[in-house]
């Protein structure tokens, strides 16, 4: 199928899907609707969900009547390495301590860039690690473990 306005086509689908999903969840989980004078927890999200869903359909419909830009390809390399590095940091920092976690974060995220220079990134990681611990742990007293749990 040839899409005349792919950006709006996909936006429309996204908004419609999310909007109606919210409305459906209200019904499936049976959040009480209440009445207009005593609104239950389901009322406002249900109305908003329907509104968003309808708006999504309008955007979708309009994408068939006017031309628009193509959606450029997703850059999977930075997506995977950057977000991956962040998630690894979140999951391991308590266990391996901030000092090591920062170096790991810098090393993994470096794969998302255009060039990878091991020595340079390693040095950057160590400097960032020392600097951050100085500022955030000693200076601003954020409660991070600095060293790995299994060592201390």
């Amino acid at each position, binding site marked *: 199928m040839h899409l005349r306005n792919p950006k709006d086509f996909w936006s429309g689908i996204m908004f419609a899907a999310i909007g109606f999903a919210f409305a459906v969840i209200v019904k499936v989980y049976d959040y009480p609707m209440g009445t207009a004078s005593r609104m239950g927890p389901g009322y406002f999200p249900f109305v908003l969900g329907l509104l968003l869903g309808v708006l999504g359909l309008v955007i979708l419909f309009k994408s068939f009547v006017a031309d628009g830009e193509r959606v450029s390809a997703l850059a999977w390399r930075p997506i995977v390495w950057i977000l991956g590095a962040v998630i690894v940091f*979140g999951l391991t920092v308590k266990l391996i301590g901030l000092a090591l976690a920062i170096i790991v974060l810098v090393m993994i995220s470096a794969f998302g860039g255009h060039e990878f220079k091991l020595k340079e990134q390693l040095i950057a990681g160590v400097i960032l690690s020392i600097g951050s611990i100085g500022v955030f742990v000693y200076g601003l007293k954020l409660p991070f473990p600095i060293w790995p749990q299994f060592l201390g």
Partner: protein
Amino acid sequence: MEALLSNLALGFSVAFTPEALMYCLIGCLLGTLIGVLPGIGPVATIAMLLPATFTLKPELSLIMLAGIYYGAQYGGSTTAILVNIPGESSSVVTALDGYQMARKGRAGAALGIAALGSFFSGCVATLLLAAAAPPLAEIAFKFGPAEYFSLMTLGLIAAVVLAHGSVIKAIAMILLGLLLGLVGTDVNSGMARFNFSIPELSDGIGFVAVAMGVFGFAEIIKNLEQGEEREIFVNKVGRLLPTMQDIKEAFPAVLRGTGLGSLLGILPGGGAVLASFSAYTFEKKIAKDSSQFGKGDIRGVAAPESANNAAAQTSFIPLLTLGIPPNPVMALMVGAMIIQGIQPGPQVMSEKPQLFWGMIVSMWIGNLMLVILNLPLIGMWIKLLTVPYRLLYPAILVFCCIGVYSLSNSPFDVVVTAVFGMVGYLFVKLDCEPAPLLLGFILGPMMEENLRRAMLLSRGDATTFLTRPLSATLLGISVLLLVVIALPAIRKKREEAFVED
């Protein structure tokens, strides 16, 4: 007048302690440090540094945040002038003439006039804020839930007007933001909504996680996708102090920018972006000889820089008097206040006068610090800009991760931020502007709360929004705004205004 002076005196007694000055200074420095990094605007900077203020006393934490805000904004202008990569949309127009000035070897003068113009407008706007806040807070006490609901509607509609691109997509983004804001426990019934039995979600999605994912991580991915193309004018910054001729040319522009910015900053949904765009356009329109605009006209730097700083200042007015954040930066401020146990609104001024006036005075001090500190330090910020992006973005990631993790010391927020990084990147791909989403996100629960109360008071009669005069006026303005942007002529103008991005 006397009340104003005694209020300011109280503010000075709070903000002029060594401790407060130190945190204001740290805030300015950290804010500039992060804000100067290409592609990182004030929203991401504040989100990132927010947890660093959690452990402080409320006064100090807000003073530090205000410092971070001004630092971040000034850092963004520096990047715009020297590298032609605006940190965020409010410095887009600064880049037009500022960068051209830099290319002509006058980067110093551009940076100098940006700093001095900002300081001047900051002084004026601070006084305006101090004078306007008490009477506005009086009016705010007359606001009932219906008025609050209508005002928030107006704010959201105004945000649509300011968003780039499609109006209908901007409205959809607002609705999406409102819905995401409703995730978590409903305050009225205590029922957890949309949490899918994930215990962490019953507290709702963290607004810092959303802001940092959408404005921070998504931006990094986008930058890495585009590759590195930067031209920096490091060696020929030139003298920082503008010449007499420069000042003579720029001063009227600074004055006009200040006036326009102060006015636009107060509007809900307004703020720095609109201010700098309109100040630039206005300057270009009234100039006798506008041929130099876009080629390095000093007025093209002076006007928008003064305007966005004035607007940054006056956008605290709706926040401090009504408790309604007019833009994403103020939304982050609300979050910070709530974490400190302060419910933003008209009562802050009467219940916590030290905090209120201390913060206002510290804004002025923050502005002053930027001038006396950042101008001499400019060499250091420039050094930072010469660091290649492949080393900068891991540093940004480190600060972001430390910031998000510190929110609740659990991996959950970090994962949520990563998810919103992906979502934000998809928004970029689909041309969906994220700022309205963030505003909707923070206003979602407040709107629901006020809607419910208004309907309860009127016994389910929805016409209450139209029969109460204040509420009806606010809704009327919203409808008018929507009609106006739908008009073909205005629509074209609006598209033109954003073309320069």
